[in-house]
């Protein structure tokens, strides 16, 4: 079987500003793809193009061989779930209800007991089952993020009865999480990939990215400048050119996993103060 999602030569511009200039990539099931890049590199715009939220000015995205633009919303929803950065909610829904919103579009096939079970499993996986009765708006940012993750999981599981293969998109899913929950969320995402879905994550933390990525996509100024297995594509030159930092680049035993320690920023803004990590 081929790639579940294919994007060819995507471009997107708003009023002459090219947010994505040239991006081609394919997502394979069973793989975790992580997109990294500096602020404004076009990561979130790329994600919006891949999920169908916005239409590209040039190029095309195909999910299971069908163009996104020709696929009805409910069918897309069966094949892919998205966790976006926005976590606002207008009305006082409980945590349980927010997670259950994941079933509004794709949950028609399930009975009530089935839905209850799906929501419970998702809340448990996201580690928020204890908050089920709490009002969503009273949660901390990190807890809200985990509830949104649970919502995406609900959608994915409900859609599984209607779609053979699925994609999970996560846009900076660990931005407000503590270290323990960062790892547990990424572990859960990797487990979902291992069970046969394609997972695409936008991340800022390079070390977590190289740890979790089967495939790393590096974006810079609206273009994909490198993609492939992390240890194969990451080198000093790429990091200097894209992230404007000098890093000490080493490999951790025993697997030789790349490990990056920021040394100094090269942006030229303000005075250049050496950033040395303790024990570096």
């Amino acid at each position, binding site marked *: 079987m081929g790639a579940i999602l294919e994007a060819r030569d995507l471009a997107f511009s708003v009023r002459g500003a090219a947010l994505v200039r040239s991006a081609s990539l394919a997502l394979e099931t069973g793989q975790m793809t992580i997109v990294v890049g500096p602020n404004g590199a076009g990561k979130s715009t790329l994600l*919006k193009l891949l*999920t*169908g*939220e916005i239409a590209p000015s040039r190029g095309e995205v195909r999910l299971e061989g069908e163009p996104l633009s020709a696929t*009805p*919303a*409910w*069918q*897309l*929803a*069966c094949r*892919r*779930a*998205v966790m*976006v950065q*926005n976590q*606002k*909610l*207008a*009305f*006082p*829904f*409980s945590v*349980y*209800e*927010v997670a259950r*919103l*994941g079933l*509004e*579009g*794709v949950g028609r096939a399930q009975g009530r*007991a089935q839905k*209850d*079970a799906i*929501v*419970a*499993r998702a*809340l*448990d*996986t*996201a*580690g928020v*089952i204890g908050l*089920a*009765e709490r009002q969503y*708006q009273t949660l901390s940012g990190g807890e809200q993020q985990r509830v949104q993750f649970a*919502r995406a*999981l609900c*959608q994915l599981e409900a859609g599984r009865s209607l779609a053979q293969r699925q994609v999970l998109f996560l846009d900076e899913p660990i931005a407000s999480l503590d270290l*323990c929950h960062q*790892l*547990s*969320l990424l*572990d*859960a995402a*990797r*487990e*979902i990939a*291992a*069970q046969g879905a394609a997972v695409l994550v936008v991340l800022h933390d390079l070390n977590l990215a190289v740890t979790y990525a089967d495939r790393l996509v590096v974006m810079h100024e609206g273009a994909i400048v490198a993609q492939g297995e992390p240890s194969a594509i990451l080198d000093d030159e790429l990091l200097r050119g894209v992230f404007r930092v000098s890093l000490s680049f080493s490999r951790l035993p025993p697997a030789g996993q790349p490990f990056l320690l920021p040394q100094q920023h090269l942006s030229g803004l303000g005075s250049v103060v050496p950033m040395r990590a303790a024990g570096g």
Partner: protein
Amino acid sequence: MSLAIKPAAPSGVEALARLAAGRRQRNLVTVLVLAGFCLLLLLLSLGAGAFAIAPGRVAEILLAKLGLAPQALLDGREALVVLNIRMPRLLLGALVGAALAISGALMQGLFRNPLADPGLVGVSAGAGLAAAATIVLGDRLLAGMALKLPFAALPFGAFFGGLVSTLALYLIATRNGRTSVATMLLAGVALGALAGSLTGLLAYLSDDRQLRDLTFWSMGSLGGASWTKLSAVAPIVLPLVIAVPFLARGLNALMLGEAEAYHLGIPVQRIKAIAIVLVALSVGASVAAAGVIGFVGIVVPHLIRLSVGPDHRLLLPLSALGGAALLVGADIVARLVVAPAELPIGIVTAFIGAPFFLWLLLRRGRIAEI
């Protein structure tokens, strides 16, 4: 520690199932209480007024009409009052109240803002302007042709005005098939102000009798209710009731935001268009039938949300029930306070609604963050 997908601990799932069952039971109780309250109001409303009839007697007459009690009961003056005067008024009140409350709930869902209301986006103002134009200009135009303005022209004018203002609003706020909620809110305020100023101009131009008509109409009343009027309004409000189950899921998903609702598989643009048309229809129809009655659309959905939560599957139908109850109740008050005369019902709802709205604003930080 790995939290990958796995069967949840049975205790957690069971606890959740218990919680969900408990919530469903509580909601059922709320529905039953509200329905019982409506039934009580129905009996009271049919009996209350300058010509008072005991609730028991009202029940007997209703049973007789249904063939469950002696038919002789239907011959008296009481039966005439109950069946031909108060019954259409009660039903019109219930229908208008339900339509206004559902429109309020739809608007609030659409705008993701608990303070939104058909009055807010200029729909009521547009309907009001068209009605005022009908009263003031229509009279003059027809006088030249030696005709008298038929009363029926007013409802049609109002309905037309509501539709035109909603359509204008939609065209202004929609670009490339996407409706911007912020633009729509602001455009609604501007259109409402424009309609208000034109209505003021018409009031300035009108003669004494027209001014009196205008004033009474703008305060809202169920006084003109008849079976004929009721049969004109019911077919317009009915589509609203039919569309509700379809809209509820979409509006729930919209609470997360438009992009998120799309990701969840909801046809966002279609949901928004349907909601807008339904609001125009029901507000136009109810303004046409009963004049401008404010605050029902904001008070009722909020109270329902407080008791059963914000899920539109329950919120929409219960708002209809609650809106009907509120308006029928307000009508009873309007008939009793200054009997044998009666107050315009809009005064009663505003007297209840305006302080409520202020209270809502003051505690707003706790109900929404927008």
